[in-house]
């Protein structure tokens, strides 16, 4: 035995890496339940009743800690597991699975975002430069980036909310026209981008953006 089960950290208990996504944690938890539940064939007779109960309670604790982002961050900090560099994260972000489920149901995160939205709206109405950009006849990716930065929204936030791949978002903002997706998708992406930062008249602006693109043919 390398280590007693009680001495493992939560990641080891669930057999996942320290950077596992919510979906990975969830599936690891399901696998663990399959293995340790009292009617499981896998561990039949392997544990006494007390051992099994203890293991199951540890696994529950591990799962509910890791699935909650705030608690997980606290746990990581306690265990000194926290990721060392944000930059490494960013470079890999394009290939990382997207967070598709909202797990922290009872959390305040939802409310917080709502507040965030109204905050964004007031910011937009107050900001001179945004109004100036939006009144232009031609909108480019650089303009979108300027608006986003003015509002102080991270590109990752937009990526999380819209589920648009990070590399696409970056390409759009940097106006790398050669690398952009097909126009039919791009138009939807721009709309989603604008909506996620609470810009009204998203239809109109995305049309402006599209018309400003160089014709591929």
């Amino acid at each position, binding site marked *: *035995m*390398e280590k007693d089960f009680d001495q493992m950290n939560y990641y080891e208990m669930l057999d996942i890496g320290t950077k596992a996504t919510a979906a990975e944690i969830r599936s690891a938890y399901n696998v663990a339940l399959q*293995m340790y539940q009292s009617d499981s*064939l896998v561990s*039949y007779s392997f544990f006494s009743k007390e051992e099994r109960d203890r293991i199951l309670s540890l696994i529950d604790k591990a799962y509910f800690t890791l699935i909650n982002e705030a608690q997980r961050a606290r746990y990581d900090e306690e265990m000194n597991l926290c990721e060392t560099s944000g930059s490494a994260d960013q470079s890999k972000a394009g290939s990382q699975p997207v967070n598709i489920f909202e797990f922290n149901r009872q959390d305040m995160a939802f409310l917080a975002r709502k507040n965030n939205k109204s905050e964004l709206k007031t910011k937009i109405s107050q900001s001179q430069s945004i109004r100036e950009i939006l009144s232009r006849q031609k909108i480019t990716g650089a303009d979108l980036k300027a608006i986003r930065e003015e509002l102080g929204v991270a590109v990752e936030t937009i990526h999380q909310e819209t589920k648009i791949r990070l590399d696409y978002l970056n390409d759009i903002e940097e106006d790398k026209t050669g690398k952009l997706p097909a126009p039919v998708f791009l138009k939807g992406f721009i709309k989603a981008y604008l909506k996620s930062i609470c810009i009204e008249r998203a239809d109109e602006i995305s049309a402006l953006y599209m018309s400003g693109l160089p014709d591929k043919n």
Partner: protein
Amino acid sequence: MAHIWPIGGGKGGSGKSFLASSMGRLLAKSGKKTLLIDLDLGAANLHTMVDVPYPEKCFSDFISKKISALEDTVLPTPFPNLFLISGAHDSLDIANLPYEKKIKTLKAIARLPYEYIILDLGAGTAFNTLDFFLASRHGIFITTPEPTSIENVYRLMRAIYLRRIRHYFSAADFKTLEKKVREHLGDDSLNKPENIVSIIKKEFPEKYALIRKDFNSFRFKLILNQLRKQDNTVLGEQICKIIKKHLGIHVEFAGNIAYDEHVHDAICQRVCFLDRYPHTRAANDLRVVNKKMGSAFGEQLMLNYL
């Protein structure tokens, strides 16, 4: 030196003899000189599986010194390259093989001039079974996806683990160890070698290092037999995971073998299943498992009894 594959499973009827005969058949077919030894002492029937209904010599003759060299008890089978040491006419008290005879047998087995030697072991966790299983570092566990069978295979693994640990202690040392385990963890904890190891780690760190090193060199395999359609196909991998995590033994999952009525038919007709029904799922699974094991076993095999 020969590759020795002991096949054990804890529970009767889990397919040990079937697997032994099939593996032997496949190895022989691929041109390897292969020997099957029926060490299911007292309940031998491997000869029936490989179509040697009237074996004229058997393992017991070696024990009773009627035949002095183990090699002379080897019988040819109808299949080229495949040989058998039968247990058909073993004396009725063969199950209680004394210790020195067992050591003598193990030494003789290690010297046999074959490429592959497959040991078909009996059910249960008698010392004979455990020691024959530990004759090689490449033991194969076989189980079916039923609670009874899984219960017994876990028992066998723990028994083997404990048997191996005992090699490292003199009788007196082991007594003191047992006492310490009882003090720390209570009476029933002696049933679990992992508890004993955790005490060894604390009390005898140098022995712990030896034991760890020893167990890391073992290459156990697990085969799940008689898997029906509705059964969980990842069961084998999960079993290996649990063993690794909680027992600290590395067991590699070698594959599933489908449940097949034809196996029963083949045994009743006393013909080789692989020849009679070569295109069934089970036959295919056997070939896959055999291929995987052949490549995985590869090179050296360390014997403790040489």
